[in-house]
C-alpha cells in the first residue's frame, strides 16, 4: 500500500500520517517531527557542493508515492544467536517489541555532512528498516541476512537501518536491497547507522540490486569504537543513479576499519560515491579500497576524503580507487583527497587509476585458448578478486559473486564446473 492522493512531495502532514497509520508511540512521532524540521532546515544539495558536482538531482523522482507499509524484510537469524539475545528484525517490529532499545539508538546521530538533508528526511519519513542489535560480549557464529524486497519500481522509500554491536560483541551481517526493473523511476533513500562499541568486531556488507529505473540517494555512517574492528562492503550493482555518502568515524583509540566497495555498472548507470575516513583518535587505522568495472556508457565518480585530525598520533590510512573501463563510452572520475593536519603519522597515502584492460594480458589469455569475451570476463573477475578475497564470510562472498556475474557474465565452462 502507498500513501496515495495527493502523491506529492513529502510534507509535515504526511510525516504525521505515517505515525498515525501505524499507531506509533508519542516519542517516535515527536522524533519524526524533529527530524522533519531538520530536513527543512538543511536544504537539499544544490549541485555546487564538492560532493554533488558530479550528480544532478534534477531528475530525482521527488513526487513518487511514499511506500507506507514496510515491504517484505526477509531475515535470517541463526537460532543460537536469537537465544543469546541478538535482535534482527524490521524496524517497525523492533519499535513494538524493544521500544527502549530502539529509542536509545534511533535518530541520535548526524549522518554524513554531504547527505544531511537525506539523513534527516529518512529519519522523518521511514516506513521500514532494519534493527540489528548484538548484546555485549555476544559473538554471533554464521551470517545474519536481511533482505529488503521492494515490490514496485515507482515508489519512494526511505528505510533506516540501525546496526548496533555492543562492547566486545562480534557479528557478520549482509543487507540486501532489491526492487524490480522497468517501470517509472522510484526513489530509494535508505540510510544506515552502524555503531561498533569498544572492542567489537563487525562485518557489514550491503548488496544493492535495485531496478534499472531506481534512484539510490543513500547514506551510511559507521562509528568505530576503541579497539573495535569494522569491515564494510558496499556492492553497488543496480539502480539508474546512485549517490551514496559514506562516513567512517574513527573516534575510538586503537580502532581499525576496512572500507571496501565493488561497482559493476553498465548501460547508462551513474554511480557516484563520496566517502570520509575521519581519523580522529590515536592509533587508528582505516584502509579503503573501491573497485569499479564500467561497461557501456556507465560512469563512476568517487570523491573520498582521508582526514587525519590535528593532534592525533600514530594513525595509518590508505585510500585506493581503481576503475576498469570496458567500453569507449564508459567514464570515471576518481578523486582521492587527503587532508592531513597532524605530522605524527605511521602511514598515509592514496592511489587512483583508470584505464582499459591491458592488451597484453588480454592477448595472453587468448593464447591460452580463451575467446576475447571469456578472457575479458576472467580478467574482470580477477580485478574484483582484490576485494572479494578479503570477504572471509562464505555466504556473503557467494552472494556478491552471483550478483556481479549479472553484469560481468558467466562462462559456459563455469556452469559445467558448477
Amino acid at each position, binding site marked *: 500500500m502507498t500513501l496515495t492522493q495527493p502523491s506529492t512531495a513529502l510534507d509535515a502532514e504526511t510525516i504525521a500520517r505515517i505515525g498515525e497509520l501505524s499507531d506509533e508511540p508519542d516519542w517516535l512521532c515527536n522524533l519524526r517531527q524533529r527530524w522533519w524540521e531538520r530536513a527543512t532546515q538543511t536544504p537539499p544539495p544544490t549541485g555546487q557542493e564538492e560532493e554533488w558536482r558530479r550528480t544532478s538531482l534534477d531528475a530525482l523522482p521527488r513526487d513518487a508515492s511514499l511506500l507506507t507499509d514496510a515491504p517484505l524484510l526477509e531475515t535470517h537469524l541463526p537460532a543460537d544467536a536469537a537465544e543469546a539475545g541478538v535482535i534482527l528484525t524490521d524496524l517497525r517490529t523492533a519499535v513494538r517489541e524493544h521500544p527502549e532499545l530502539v529509542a536509545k539508538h534511533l535518530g541520535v546521530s548526524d549522518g554524513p555532512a554531504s547527505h544531511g538533508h537525506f539523513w534527516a528526511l529518512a529519519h522523518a519519513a521511514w516506513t521500514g528498516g532494519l534493527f540489528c542489535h548484538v548484546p555485549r560480549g555476544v559473538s554471533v557464529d554464521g551470517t545474519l541476512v536481511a533482505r529488503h524486497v521492494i515490490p514496485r519500481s515507482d515508489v519512494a522509500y526511505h528505510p533506516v537501518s540501525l546496526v548496533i554491536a555492543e562492547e566486545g560483541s562480534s557479528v557478520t551481517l549482509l543487507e540486501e536491497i532489491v526492487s524490480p526493473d522497468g517501470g517509472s523511476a522510484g526513489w530509494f533513500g535508505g540510510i544506515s547507522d552502524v555503531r561498533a562499541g569498544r572492542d567489537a568486531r563487525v562485518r557489514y556488507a550491503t548488496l544493492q540490486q535495485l531496478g534499472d529505473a531506481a534512484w539510490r540517494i543513500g547514506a551510511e555512517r559507521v562509528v568505530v569504537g576503541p579497539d573495535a574492528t569494522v569491515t564494510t562492503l558496499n556492492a553497488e550493482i543496480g539502480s539508474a543513479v546512485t549517490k551514496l555518502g559514506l562516513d567512517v568515524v574513527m573516534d575510538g583509540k586503537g580502532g581499525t576499519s576496512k572500507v571496501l566497495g565493488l561497482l559493476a555498472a553498465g548501460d547508462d548507470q551513474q554511480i557516484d560515491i563520496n566517502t570520509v575516513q575521519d581519523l580522529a583518535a590515536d592509533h587508528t587505522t582505516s584502509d579503503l579500497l573501491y573497485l569499479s568495472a564500467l561497461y557501456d556508457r556507465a560512469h563512476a565518480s568517487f570523491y573520498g576524503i582521508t582526514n587525519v585530525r590535528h593532534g592525533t598520533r600514530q594513525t595509518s590510512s590508505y585510500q585506493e580507487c581503481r576503475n576498469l573501463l570496458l567500453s*569507449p*563510452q564508459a*567514464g570515471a572520475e576518481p578523486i582521492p*583527497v*587527503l587532508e592531513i593536519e597532524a*605530522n*605524527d603519522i605511521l602511514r598515509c597515502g592514496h592511489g587512483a*587509476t583508470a584505464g582499459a584492460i591491458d592488451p597484453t594480458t588480454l592477448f595472453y589469455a587468448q593464447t591460452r585458448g580463451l575467446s576475447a569475451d571469456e578472457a575479458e570476463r576472467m580478467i574482470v573477475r580477477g580485478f574484483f578478486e582484490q576485494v572479494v578475497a578479503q570477504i572471509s564470510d562464505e555466504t556473503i562472498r557467494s552472494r556478491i559473486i552471483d550478483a556481479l556475474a549479472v553484469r560481468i557474465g558467466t562462462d559456459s565452462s563455469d556452469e559445467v564446473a558448477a
Partner: protein
Amino acid sequence: MALPNPALNEIPGGYKYGWHDEEKPLQIFQKGLNAEIVAKISAVKDEPKWMTDLRLKAYRHFEARPMPTWGGDLSEIDFQDIYYYVTGTDKAVQSWDDVPEYIRRTYDKLGIPEAEKKYLAGVGGQYDSEVVYHNIREDLEKQGVIFLGTDQALKEHPELFREHFGTVIPANDNKLAALNTAVWSGGSFIYVPKGVHVELPLQAYFRINTQNMGQFERTLIIADEGSSVHYVEGCTAPTYSTASLHSAVVEIIVKKGARVRYTTIQNWSSNVYNLVTKRAVAHEDAVMEWVDGNLGSKLTMKYPSIYLLGERAHGEVLSIAFAGDGQHQDAGGKIIHAAPNTTSLITSKSISKGTGRTSYRGLVKVYPGCEKSKSTVRCDALILDDDARSDTYPYMEIDEDDVTIGHEATVSKVGSEQLFYLMSRGLSEAEASAMIVNGFIEPIVKELPMEYAVEMNRLIQLQMEGAVG
C-alpha cells in the same frame, strides 16, 4: 628566486630580500580600480584601440565574477586598496648603465648582471609595473629570436602579438585572469622561430617594491615548429606590513615538434598574495614542461596547466612547495589530454613546517577519443611539525577507456630513525632535517639548472633553520 651572491650568503636566516628601496616612482596611479584607471593604464602605454577595448571588456568580466571560494583564504584582499600602476622609469633599456640608479642597485644586490654575463642568453627585469631592462644575446637576435618586454612587443610586433595574445587564457577565463587582462603591465614576450634552439635559458626577474602594489605582468611565449627554449623567472618583494598582490598571466604556445621549459622559483615575501594563471598549449609532438618552485608568498594559488592538443604531445609539471609559518601554498598542475597518444607526468613534492599548509590541487582530464593516452601523477608530502598541514586534491576526469591513468600520493614525517642516524654522524638536528628535506626534493631540484639548484637548496636551508628543537 635569486642568483647566488656570496655577499648575501653572510646574511643569517630569514627572508633576505625583505629590504625595500625608498619608493621613488615616476608615475603612480591612485589606489583602487575602476574603468577609468583601466583606460588610463592603456592610454599611458599608448596602446592600440583593440587592446584598450579588450582591457575594458576584461574589467567587466572581473567585476561580474565572484571571488573563488575554494583554495586559500582570499577574504583579506581588498581590490580597492591596491595600486594598479606604479613605474619608476618610462622605458625599458638595453644597457645596464641606463637603468635608473636606485633600481640598478636593487638588481645589483640580487646579482642580475653578473648572472647574465656568465650564464644567460638574455635577461629581463621588471620593477613594479614596468619592465626596466631587457637584453638578449646578439646571435639569438640574428636568428630571429624575439625577447622583449610585453608592452614593447605590442608596439614592435603588433601582428604576431595580436594573433596569439589571449588565445590560451581568454579574458573571461577566471576572475584573476580577467583582472590581469584589464590591468596587465610588463612581463616577457618571447618568439622563437622555426627550428631555432635557444641553448641557454632566457631569464626574467620580477620585483615588487611599492607597498600595496599589485603586479600584473603578462607573459606570452611562442615556440614555433621544431624550436626550443627554456625560460626562467624569479620573484621577490620587500616585507611590508600590508599585503601586496601578484596576479600574473602566462600563456605559452608550443607548436608542432617544439619544446618549452618554464621554470619559476617563487620567493615573494610572506605578505604577497600570489594568484597566477599559467597555461600552455602543446601541439603535435610538442613537449611542454613546467618546473614550479613555490617557497615564498602568504598564499599562492597556482596550477600550471597544459592542453595537449596534438597527437603525441607530452606535458610535465614538476612542483615543489614549501610552506613555513603562516604560509599556504595551494599549488599543483592540470593536464588536459585532448588528442590521442598524448602523455603526461605530474610530480609534486611539498613540505609544510610550523603552521604552514601545502595543498596539492590537480586535474587530469582525458577527452573521449584520446586513445592510448597515458598519465602519471605522483605527490609526496612531508609534514615537519605538529601544527603543519598537508592536503591532496587530485581531480581526474576520464572519458576514454583505452588509456592508462594513475595517481599516487604519500604523506609522511621526518622519521626519527633517519634523524637519529644522521645525528650519530655528527650533524645537528636542524642540519639533519635540512638534509632529509633536501633529499626529499632532490628529484625536482636536479631538473633545475645548476645555479638555481644551488640556490633552491640554500632557500630550503634558510626555511629550515630553527625548524627543529
